[in-house]
Structure formats: structure tokens, C-alpha cells
């Protein structure tokens, strides 16, 4: 069998291709970005499947759903918080009884390496009443993706593939086990009613989905991803692991005096019978799962369990942050491995920061200059490289909550009576979720200033192209109804700081809505482009 060295994310992409994928959609988001990056490159080389970036996770999910409406197989990929944005189509897609397979690959970020929270997407799968597959390693990421499409079509639900950072961003060799399958033919959904979620249809669809739960659980009980190994000689401890937690368990289990009985869960809904069999065989249980204590909480219920259960809720396993091969040891009854702690006191932190000469930095200087004499001021901001403006030497922004919230929060604060309220958002985040709140602000001519930092790229995730080019940004803003007299495009150059500061000050003083678009290409993407051009010149 051919072997390939791939990132976890890339395993998902390749698995989808081999399952007969027709289209893939996503908005970039760490740690999920490389799924679409792989597919976009694949499309460039092979012409198919269709793969593209979208404005946001909601549009991406709906576009994928459209592919399925036409009978073909689709993939949508996102980071965990992206699923909040896409929650509406995701939850409702469970009801429409799709005949073209839909896989929703969601990469969670326990430990918050590059995210604002560590929410656990498995809860969304449970909430939507759909199947969820949770690979423990890169091979499973590939194999599960291939199988997920068959499952989606068999049970007529979207299948969630739940990844975590350590799997998504870890590279290893996998065996390419699947025989590539052709794409589905284009075939419109045969049952019209099942896609029109009018209440009368939706009630039927919901009933049917609840009926199918039994079949999904029956599948989960015997599928190869849920494995129960009872130790006939040891009845003391039963261990449940889910997803990547198995790796940390296996890293340590050799040191335990006797091998516990072990149920590994890689597929949901939960295999309830297997859990009962494990519980019947053990005097106590330990649950190790990456993310929130989903299994553990269900086990415990409100009325307690007949046997003691250890896990995140009792604190034996850390309830926050990422699991490691070390922090699961106490729960397994193993001592901490001997190690010499680093001399932390003499090691100053090196936090991430804006690149030397980054245009965002120049605009933060201009903004701070514009504010002189106006204190107190308010700067709501958003998600991207420019969020690093929260840190010294800038300390220029005061909020970062969710995509687009800079615009809407500045509006709310202005309407509460605060002045000056300035929202700072990047071009891609603005296109993702800033257009609709700006429409709200236009409606009220809210007394606020929106500063769009346009670096012509989705920079933080690796410099992907934005959904609309920089040249169209002003037209988009004007199209939403912003007064042309208070919409300006400026250069984010260091020598323009005084001029830009003066302009910002004028617009802050204007009693109403103003938008300033500060343009300069991201230094990193510019550098990469130059390198590529140079290589092309050399090659020719």
C-alpha cells in the first residue's frame, strides 16, 4: 500500500478526495486551514474536486449543503468557533435527509493555541443528533473521512469529523488504504418535501431523525472505531478514552501494574452497551477525553453511578487546557516523571508579535496620535494579526470577542453614549462578519469610526486570498450606504502617520458614521509573492 507523509488536516483532505468528493468549502482558521489548502492545491493539479475559500463558515456550510442537494459529496472545514457561525446550517442540515454525503470537519483547539476558547464540538454533533467520528491519529483521520461519506449517505445526516490541534498539526506517514471512488452523479434530491423545512415537513423530518437514532446507536455499538478490551484477570479499573486521549493513555499504560479493561470511543452516538459491559466488569472507571467531559458527564448523570468515576469533573484529569502524556498520569495512578524544571525566572516570555514594519503597527500609531486629548477612548477590535495590537508596545485595542464583533460592539457602545468609539477590523474579518453590523450602523448613522486594516490577505492563517480584492473594499462599504464624504482610503505607510492621524481625528470628531480603509499589503505575503516571482523568472 502506498505510504504518504501528511499532516492530520491533509489526511482528511486526501480521504475526502478518495471518497469521491465533488466540492470543498471553508474559511481559514487555525488549526483547520490546511484541509482546504491541500484541496485547493489538489484542484490546481488535477482539475477536480472543486475547492475554494468562502466568505465565512456559514456560507461555506450552505454551499456544501447545496452540493449535497445536487446529490454529490461535499466537505466543509472550519475551526471550532467557526461552527458557531455555521451552527444554523449545520443543525438544520441534520433534518433535510441528504442523499449526497456531507462531512463537516471541525478542528477544536484545546489549550487555545490560536483561539479565543476551547469549546468541544462533539456537543454540537450531539445537539444536532448526527454522527461524530473522532480520529486518534492521522491514519484514522484518513480512514474515518473515507468512511464518513458512506455513513452520511446511509443515515442521511451530516457526519462531523472532530479533530484537535495536536492531530490536525502533526505530521506522520499513513497508508493510503482506499481505492479512489468516482464522484456521485449530479442528481437532485428525489424527495422535495424533505428539503423544505416548513413546520409541517420539519416535524416529519425531526421525527424521522429521532427514529434513526436507534440505527445510529446500533451502528456505533459494533463499528470498528469503538473497541472494548476486557481484561479477564483484572477487574479493578475500567478506562474509557476518546479520540486523541488514547495516545496519552497508551504512552503510559505499560507502567501500570495490571492492564485495565479499556473502551476506546472514536464514534458517536455513544456505544451505550459497550459502556455498560465495561462498567459491569470493573470496580471503578476512569474517563480520559480531550475537550470537555462529554462522556463523563453523561455517565454520571444527575443521579450518580453505581461505581466511582474519575475524570475531569472530579479533577483527577485536568478540566482545562490540553491533555499531555504527563498530565494524565496521576489519574492512572502513576507518579510524575522525574524532570528538572526550567529556570523560568531567567527566561523572559517571547509572546507572538506583529512583524517588524507591519502596516498595522503604523496605523495603531496614527490612531493613538488621533486620540490625543480625547481620553478616555474606546477601541473595539477583532480577530487576526492586528489582535496582537493588544500587546505592548501598542496596547492599542480593548476587545477581541468573535468575528465581526468590533463593528457591532462599537455601535452598541456609541449608542450607550460613549465617545469616541472606534472599531478596528482586518479586511478579511470585515468581509467575514463585519458587513452586516456596518449595515446596522448605516441605518442609525451611528456616531462611531470604523478603521479597516486592509493588508490584502488573510494573514494570520498563512496569507490566503481574501474573498474580495482590496480594490473592491471601498465600493462594498459605499454599497452598504456609508456617506462617501466620510469614507476614506489611505496608505498605511510610516511616513503617512501624521496625515492619517489628522484624518482619523477629523472622522472621530464627525457626529456620525465614518469608515477609514488603511491599505498596505502584508509584508509576509508580499515577500512570498516576490520569492515566487523570482523563482518563476529563474525557471524561465
Amino acid at each position, binding site marked *: 500500500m502506498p505510504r504518504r507523509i501528511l499532516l492530520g488536516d491533509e489526511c482528511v483532505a486526501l480521504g475526502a478526495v478518495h471518497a469521491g468528493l465533488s466540492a470543498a468549502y471553508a474559511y481559514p482558521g487555525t488549526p483547520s486551514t490546511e484541509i482546504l489548502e491541500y484541496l485547493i492545491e489538489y484542484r490546481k493539479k488535477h482539475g477536480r474536486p472543486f475547492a475554494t475559500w468562502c466568505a465565512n463558515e456559514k456560507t461555506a456550510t450552505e454551499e456544501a449543503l447545496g452540493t449535497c442537494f445536487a446529490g454529490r459529496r461535499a466537505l466543509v472545514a472550519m475551526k471550532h468557533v467557526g461552527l458557531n457561525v455555521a451552527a444554523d446550517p449545520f443543525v438544520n442540515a441534520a433534518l433535510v435527509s441528504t442523499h449526497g454525503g456531507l462531512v463537516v470537519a471541525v478542528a477544536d483547539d484545546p489549550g487555545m493555541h490560536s483561539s479565543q476558547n476551547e469549546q468541544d464540538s462533539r456537543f454540537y454533533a450531539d445537539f444536532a443528533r448526527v454522527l461524530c467520528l473522532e480520529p486518534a491519529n492521522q491514519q484514522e483521520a484518513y480512514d474515518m473521512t473515507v468512511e464518513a461519506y458512506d455513513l452520511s449517505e446511509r443515515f442521511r445526516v451530516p457526519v462531523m469529523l472532530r479533530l484537535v490541534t495536536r492531530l490536525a498539526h502533526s505530521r506522520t506517514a499513513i497508508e493510503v488504504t482506499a481505492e479512489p471512488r468516482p464522484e456521485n452523479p449530479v442528481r437532485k434530491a428525489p424527495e422535495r418535501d424533505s428539503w423544505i423545512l416548513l413546520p409541517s415537513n420539519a416535524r416529519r423530518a425531526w421525527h424521522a431523525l429521532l427514529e434513526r437514532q436507534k440505527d445510529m446507536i446500533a451502528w456505533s455499538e459494533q463499528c470498528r472505531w469503538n473497541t472494548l478490551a476486557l481484561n479477564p484477570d483484572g477487574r479493578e479499573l475500567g478506562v474509557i478514552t476518546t479520540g486523541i486521549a488514547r495516545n496519552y493513555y497508551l504512552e503510559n499504560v505499560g507502567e501500570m501494574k495490571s492492564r485495565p479493561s479499556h473502551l476506546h470511543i472514536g464514534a458517536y452516538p455513544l456505544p451505550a452497551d459497550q459502556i455498560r459491559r465495561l462498567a459491569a466488569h470493573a470496580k471503578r472507571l476512569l474517563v480520559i477525553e480531550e475537550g470537555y467531559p462529554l462522556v463523563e458527564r453523561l455517565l454520571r448523570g444527575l443521579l450518580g453511578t453505581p461505581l466511582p468515576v474519575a475524570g475531569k469533573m472530579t479533577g483527577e484529569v485536568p478540566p482545562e487546557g490540553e491533555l499531555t502524556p504527563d498530565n494524565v498520569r496521576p489519574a492512572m495512578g502513576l507518579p510524575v516523571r*522525574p524532570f528538572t524544571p526550567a529556570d523560568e525566572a531567567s527566561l523572559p516570555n517571547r509572546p507572538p508579535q506583529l512583524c517588524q514594519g507591519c502596516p498595522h503597527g503604523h496605523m495603531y500609531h496614527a490612531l493613538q496620535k488621533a486620540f490625543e486629548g480625547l481620553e478616555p477612548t474606546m477601541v473595539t477590535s477583532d480577530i487576526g494579526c492586528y489582535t*496582537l495590537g493588544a500587546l505592548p508596545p501598542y496596547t492599542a485595542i480593548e476587545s477581541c470577542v468573535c468575528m465581526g464583533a468590533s463593528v457591532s460592539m462599537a455601535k452598541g457602545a456609541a449608542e450607550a453614549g460613549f465617545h469616541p468609539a472606534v472599531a478596528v477590523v482586518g479586511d478579511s474579518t470585515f468581509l467575514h462578519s463585519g458587513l452586516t453590523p456596518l449595515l446596522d450602523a448605516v441605518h442609525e448613522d451611528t456616531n462611531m469610526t470604523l478603521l479597516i486594516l486592509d493588508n490584502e490577505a488573510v494573514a494570520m492563517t498563512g496569507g490566503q486570498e481574501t474573498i474580495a480584492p482590496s480594490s473592491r473594499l471601498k465600493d462594498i462599504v459605499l454599497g452598504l450606504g456609508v456617506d462617501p464624504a466620510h469614507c476614506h482610503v489611505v496608505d498605511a505607510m510610516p511616513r503617512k502617520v501624521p496625515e492619517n492621524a489628522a484624518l482619523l481625528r477629523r472622522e472621530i470628531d464627525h457626529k456620525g458614521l465614518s469608515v477609514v480603509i488603511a491599505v498596505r499589503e502584508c509584508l509576509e505575503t508580499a515577500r512570498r509573492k516576490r520569492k515566487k516571482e523570482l523563482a518563476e523568472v529563474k525557471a524561465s
Partner: protein
Amino acid sequence: MKYDIMLAGVGGQGVLSLAALIGRAAVAEGLHVKQSEVHGMAQRGGAVLSHLRLADHDIASDLIPLGTADMILSMEPLESLRYTAYLSPQGTVVTASDPFINIPNYPDREDVLAKIRRLPRAVLVEAERLAREAGEVLSKNTVMVGAAAHLLPLKRESFDGAIRQTFGAKGEKALQVNFAAFEAGWKASA
């Protein structure tokens, strides 16, 4: 057999390219390899860490346990000290001696180097100078792989293959620069 390496540096220094070269050499020898990478926010000029695990058997965890790493391989001296909790008592620190100063409170360079020298097993490499002498300062990563190479459970030919695989497409000059850089690193720590 297992060999665990903590790769360290500052975002933008090419820590992942170190991992790629060693990983390719290991795969060529039929070893199992797992390499955990850092992407996204953590990359921007901040401290960067990558776990690289080599073994002749299945590797369970993507992360290296505390106190067990065989090597810390770092592109930057201060960063080489940040992860010593992972180093096994028999482990070695191999680090470039050139500081990357992008924080206001960077400690005194000589203090940092003295701390490294006090470690039980440490190799300091003047990687920037050696890379420049090899013909291209950007070959610093290859210098560091050369400096680590004789401690790694891999054959020298495997690195030649990995260098060819990595830089072959960039033309003959890039290839020769990287062979020279590897050789310089190898000699510097031999």
C-alpha cells in the same frame, strides 16, 4: 529504539524546516516519525516549539513526555533553555549561539551562553557564521541539522538524500550551499 527531539526557535526562524529535514532522513530509513507543528498565532515572532519523535515502532503520543527528550535542537540560545524540563538526564542540547532579540528584556547574551555551557551535555554552534561561509545565511537550519546529525540514530547518507529531496528543486547552487552548510555543522560539533 526511540529518539525524541524538541525543536525550538522563534517564529520565522524555520524550525519546521529542521523537522522536515530530519523527518525525511528518518522516513528514508524506514522509521516511524511523528512531528507536531505550531501554526497560526503562535508563529508570529513568538517562541516556537515542535515535537519530533522517531522510533522503530508505533508512536502513540504526538507530544514528548517531560524528562525524556533525547535532544533539544534550537535555532536560538534563549529558546534552547525554555524547554529543558523535557530533556532526559542523558539528553543533549544542540543550539545556535546567535541570539534573536525581539523583546526588550532579552537577558545578557553571555549569561545565556554560560547557562547553556553549564548543562551536562550542550553543543553551541556559531550557525550564522557557518551558514554565511557556506554561501547563504538562510542555510542556518541545515547547519543545525548537520550539528545534530551525529547524535541522531540516522546514517549520514540519509541526510544527503533528505537535502537532495528538500533543495533539489531549487537548483544546483542551493543544493551545494546546503551540502556545505550540513558539512560545516557536522564538523563544528564533531
